């Protein structure tokens, strides 16, 4: 393993982590602030990818598709909140899980009915579709660098929004002292709707970014959703800072595990066995890490204090 290869794998892990962060940021806010389990968050990621891909195809440019997908994802988030989720806030977690799981099934099938079950063709982002040569021998896809860049912009922005603005202060206050905040004349319902819509938009944004790299197909949100839950368990429910650290951690552990484990095991096992066990272990590694964190820090890396 050369140092350039290691560098490439680090970038890969970083890029995967950024994508996970964009999905889990919304999930962690909704779960932590509103105490609402939204399994349908992955569907919003999928819809973002579908909207960006099909609008991009219609207008002949990925960038137009991306720009249009953001407000549309926001609108879909608002619509879902108004139609379904709003009625679930006061229910227990089991009802929330059941209802949002129903939303997954419904929207997955609706996607299939509208776009078909074959993966969608996605227009490549003009100007960033090729590779950038890191060294004369090793290239790196430009679009993946752009995804990392997007994460570097969104993460501080979100942190600033939650920690430093008036709206963010109300959201934080509302999560711990709901009754008092509303007694002070703040419309908690509207605040939560806002949080929800922003979360949905971030998931849609992540989906749109993922489109040129991953297959845009029905059910694409389900795998991401599971990893996003791993992220918020490790990072601490409701913490943006935790989501950032944990997504990068999950992204790096997953990628480096897949890259290095089979080679490391070859030192102690026969090559054929090392390949098979290495591949199996690497796909488990993220969950092993989560189990370890649950043992050592059950509330996550950055637990949000509760009243």
């Amino acid at each position, binding site marked *: 393993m050369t140092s350039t290869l290691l560098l490439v794998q680090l970038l890969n892990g970083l890029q995967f982590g950024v994508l996970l962060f964009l999905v889990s940021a919304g999930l962690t806010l909704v779960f932590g602030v509103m105490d609402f389990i939204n399994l349908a968050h992955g569907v919003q990621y999928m819809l973002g990818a579908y909207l960006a891909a099909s609008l991009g195809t219609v207008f002949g440019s990925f960038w137009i598709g991306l720009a249009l997908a953001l407000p549309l994802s926001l609108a879909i988030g608002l619509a879902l909140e108004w139609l379904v989720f709003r009625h679930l806030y006061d229910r227990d977690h089991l009802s929330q899980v059941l209802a949002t799981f129903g939303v997954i099934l419904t929207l997955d099938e609706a996607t299939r009915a509208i776009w078909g079950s074959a993966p969608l063709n996605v227009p490549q982002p003009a100007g960033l579709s090729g590779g950038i040569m890191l060294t004369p021998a*090793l290239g790196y896809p430009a679009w993946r660098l752009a995804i990392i860049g997007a994460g570097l912009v969104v993460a501080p922005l979100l942190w600033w929004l939650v920690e430093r603005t008036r709206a963010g202060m109300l959201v934080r206050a509302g999560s711990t002292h709901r009754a008092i905040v509303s007694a002070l004349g703040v419309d908690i319902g509207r605040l939560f709707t806002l949080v929800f819509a922003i979360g949905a938009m971030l998931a849609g944004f992540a989906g749109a970014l993922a489109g040129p*790299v991953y297959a845009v197909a029905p059910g694409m949100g389900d795998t991401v959703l599971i990893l996003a839950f791993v992220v918020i368990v490790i990072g601490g429910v409701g913490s943006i800072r935790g989501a950032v650290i944990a997504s990068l951690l999950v992204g790096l552990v997953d990628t480096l595990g*897949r890259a290095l484990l089979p080679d490391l095991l070859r030192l102690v096992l026969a090559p054929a066995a090392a390949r098979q066990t290495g591949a199996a272990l690497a796909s488990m590694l993220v969950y092993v890490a989560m189990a370890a964190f649950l043992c050592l820090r059950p509330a996550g890396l950055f637990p949000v204090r509760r009243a």
Partner: protein
Amino acid sequence: MHRRTLLGATAAATLAGLAPRTGRAQGGAAGVKIAFMATLSGPGAALGTHMRDGWLTAMGQLGNKLGGVPAETLIIDDELKPESAVTKARAAIERDKVDFVVGLVFSNILGAIARPVTESQTFLISANAGPSPLAGRGCNPFFFATSYQNDQNHATMGQVAQEEGYKRVFVLVPNYQAGKDAVAGFRSRFKGEIVDEVYVPLGQLDFAAELAKIADAKPDALFTFMPGALGVNLVRQYHQAGLGRIPVLSTFTVDESTLPAQGDAALGFFTASDWAPDLPGERNAQFVKAFEAAHNYIPASYAAHAYDTAFLLDAALQARGGNLADKHALRSALETVKFPSVRPSFKFGKNHFPVQDFYLCKVGKRPDGKFETEIVRKVLTNDVDAYAAECRMPA
């Protein structure tokens, strides 16, 4: 009041008595019933859709008759769940009294229903899945495959790598049985060095780690088997990573079911198949044209095999004069009857798998901008699968 209730009840009873009788008239003794089972929901649905549309194209051309007998098709979704497939297949046989079960995209579904279906002496015809147990020791008088034995496509690619003189080949497959079979099939004919074998989990999103390894290893070629969405991810990312100069020998990775999503990124990828849309022959050209006119997309091999299956049944029933009762004679008809196949050389071997030619194909762009696999050259002629020798087919 009382009389009216009584009258109503009598009428209802009469209707209820009539209903099964009309049902039988349509699809019972006078007709032939086919259970068409394929994966029509979930991640594998695109393949099942190709297969179903191929079958429906054929049935449309045959005027919904097989060998002159009115035919009724029950379309069944196996949901890619073996237990659900078994339940539905049993229901089709016991309740609907179907004469044939056809379709079958995935080998694990076929493996699950093979025994219950063939034990009920119902003919089972696979239009895609071709697992080795059913080709070898487990060959069955009631089972036919109009597609191939799974290993044959991989072996064809092994032969290609050997003939091209590649010395070092990198292997990338998913970590499950079919992935391991792919490597075995490839190795059966490729004698050069395998630089590295990498196994990825099914449902992997990101191939970045593996692609970096490939770039680092600088092999002469990459052999890969990545069905469905896995293939879409890999092809797109392969292109983005700038690995275009390393040739890709693939199986079930680029075909007409995934090419609409892969687009330009798949241009130049190689694949091995027994069929391609541009396979020479009047019969095939007609099929592709009719399919596109009816369904507005280019058929993949799944559609072609389903289409052939319908015409096989048509010819066999024609030869038997529509007699479904004599199963032994019907089986002989299926084994030997000549039907107009879209493939130039098609005949069944003694294990009821086709003995046919295999081709090296390459992804190309048609003048109308759509993508398809195009034949480069014939690699194997009248290839018999590796398991046929183990089959002791009862007479």
